[in-house]
């Protein structure tokens, strides 16, 4: 037990430092930060003018002695929509690269045999690598979140308050869980492949299906998503009519939502969007009400992360069965 306390942090520290030295990870992080900044900037410029309009209205209302001033309809956290979408796409690739590099580095340098010659168990090795990766993923997410929050404050002229900060933390925590799943996929695929680069390609293939193809199929089959502005809006139908009509297409809707639900990227997106007020319907809900509405997405994310976590531990245990130093 005591040796584990020493070994795991040492392995985690090694994993963290080695990953930080990787040029490709730094380049991918730079791309993520730049696109996040631009995405928030574009939204924040519009937001700034809307906020100044609202402030002018409020000042005028207060000056004229109006008893009740309408609350601001603006939601600064919703400006993070683009940033979260980039985390979903680029963040996942960074996590896969992290998982791949962690395994291939030990193979290429032939240091795995050396580490295993020391009194380090496969579980400690897995825990150390996983902790180091989680530390790095948390750093990446924290950098992206800080850039986004500063952009909202400096460009949008609205700083995030305490309650919003809690919701933001939860959204970014779900991003860490989401990236952890992809880290596991990248590491497992690399461990299982005799040629490390093939593992990377397999993991990227899974990413393609989960992040792009499945949500795209769901979008395409969405009845209301077929013409600009929405089909039901074009047909002048209210929400009650929409529900009444969709009741006749239950099987179709079940298949469509089933395809979307199979993608954990969708669960991350739904949870993170609810926490950052992207959808109007969630803006008035309290945190506990939001948890109640999104419990399904939380359950799926936990299930995927635990399953892949166990898969990673199992793969690390069987890693010594793969011949080391195999050429790609």
């Amino acid at each position: 037990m005591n040796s584990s306390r020493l070994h795991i942090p040492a392995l985690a520290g090694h994993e963290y430092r080695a990953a930080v030295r990787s040029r490709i990870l730094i380049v991918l992080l730079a791309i993520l930060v730049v696109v996040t900044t631009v995405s928030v900037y574009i939204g924040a410029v519009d937001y700034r003018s809307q906020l100044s309009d609202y402030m002018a209205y409020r000042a005028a209302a207060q000056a004229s002695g109006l008893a009740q001033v309408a609350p601001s309809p603006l939601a600064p956290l919703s400006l993070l929509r683009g940033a979260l979408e980039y985390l979903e796409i680029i963040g996942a690739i960074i996590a896969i690269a992290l998982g791949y590099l962690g395994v291939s580095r030990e193979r290429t340098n032939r240091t795995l045999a050396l580490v295993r010659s020391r009194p380090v168990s496969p579980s400690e090795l897995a825990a150390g690598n996983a902790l180091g990766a989680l530390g790095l993923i948390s750093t990446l997410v924290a950098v992206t979140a800080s850039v986004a929050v500063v952009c909202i404050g400096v460009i949008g002229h609205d700083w995030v308050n305490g309650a919003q900060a809690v919701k933001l933390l939860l959204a970014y925590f779900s991003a860490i869980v989401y990236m952890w799943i992809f880290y596991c996929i990248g590491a497992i695929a690399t461990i299982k492949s005799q040629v490390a680069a093939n593992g990377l390609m397999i993991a990227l293939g899974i990413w393609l299906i989960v992040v792009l193809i499945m949500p795209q199929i769901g979008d395409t089959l969405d009845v209301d998503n077929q013409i600009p502005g929405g089909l039901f809006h074009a047909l002048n139908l209210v929400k009650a009519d929409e529900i009444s009509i969709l009741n006749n297409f239950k099987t179709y809707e079940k298949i469509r939502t089933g395809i979307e639900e199979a993608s954990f990227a969708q669960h991350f997106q739904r949870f993170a969007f609810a926490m950052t007020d992207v959808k109007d319907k969630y803006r008035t809900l309290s945190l506990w009400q939001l948890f109640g509405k999104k419990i399904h997405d939380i359950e799926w994310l936990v299930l995927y992360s635990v399953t892949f976590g166990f898969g990673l531990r199992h793969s690390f245990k069987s890693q010594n069965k793969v011949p080391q130093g195999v050429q790609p």
Partner: protein
Amino acid sequence: MIATIAKHQLLLLRRQRIFLGMMCLFLAMAAAAGMLGWSSHHTIVRVYDDAKQLLANAGKPAPPNPFLLTPPLSLLSNMTIYIPLLGALLALVLGHLSMIEDQTDGTGRLIFSRPVSRTTYVLGTMASASSALAAILAASWWVSALSLAIVHRSIPSVQEFGQLTLFYGLSWSYMFAFALIGMVTVLLTQRRSLALLSAIGVWLIVTFAVPQFTSGLRPSASLNPITDPVSTSQRFFKVTAKARPYSVVEQYKAASGRILQTATAEPVWETMRRVLPLAILIIGLVLATIRLVQQHDFSRSASNE
């Protein structure tokens, strides 16, 4: 000699399970594009009928069917999404494998011990990549034509066959550009993983980042054939919109929409102008690949991964 090298490369590609897997996925998505298009279209027509009935019961007039004037090839509008996503990634992997294999297994050194010029070698490699892409897209063409015939219960007209061929010709050019990017990144980097991830970095910038910079399109908008118009009246876009004609993914989608008649009609020269940046990009990449192969040290093996 170019043909011999191309034939050898194609033989190697046939043995690559990763490439074959991605190719199958691409063809499956081509078949799915027709099926999904038919399924959503069929459901929407039924939704419209239900809505018409509901509005009639409430004594309200029903608006005209928004899908009444939809062209037959709109069934394949999903393909304009799959080519920049799946097709471009398949092409990246193809280009990557075409160039990396000779480095990792050491055949690069062996080839150049024979009287083969580097220009011949690179032209043969490009010919194999372009032939492989042409074969994949020809198969996809058949799948699409078959989907159209099954859904519409009639053989597509000569004009529709022509439009389909033009669309796949344009898609071939788009994918070939990414195959070249896959080759260039191998020649510019020393590690296999670095080459692959750099190529994917370029693809991410071209597919997701540039459209947001120039047109304000969020990344998820790239997944949907129908995109809501975005306000680009900000000063930021007044500057960046000047680069929009050079955003190859946006121009590819716009030109494809015009060819498949799912977008607003425009003069032919306007569509040809949209394809021009892609043509310039391909020429630039071909020249860069030839130049890089001339300078590349094939005696250094990339087998350290």
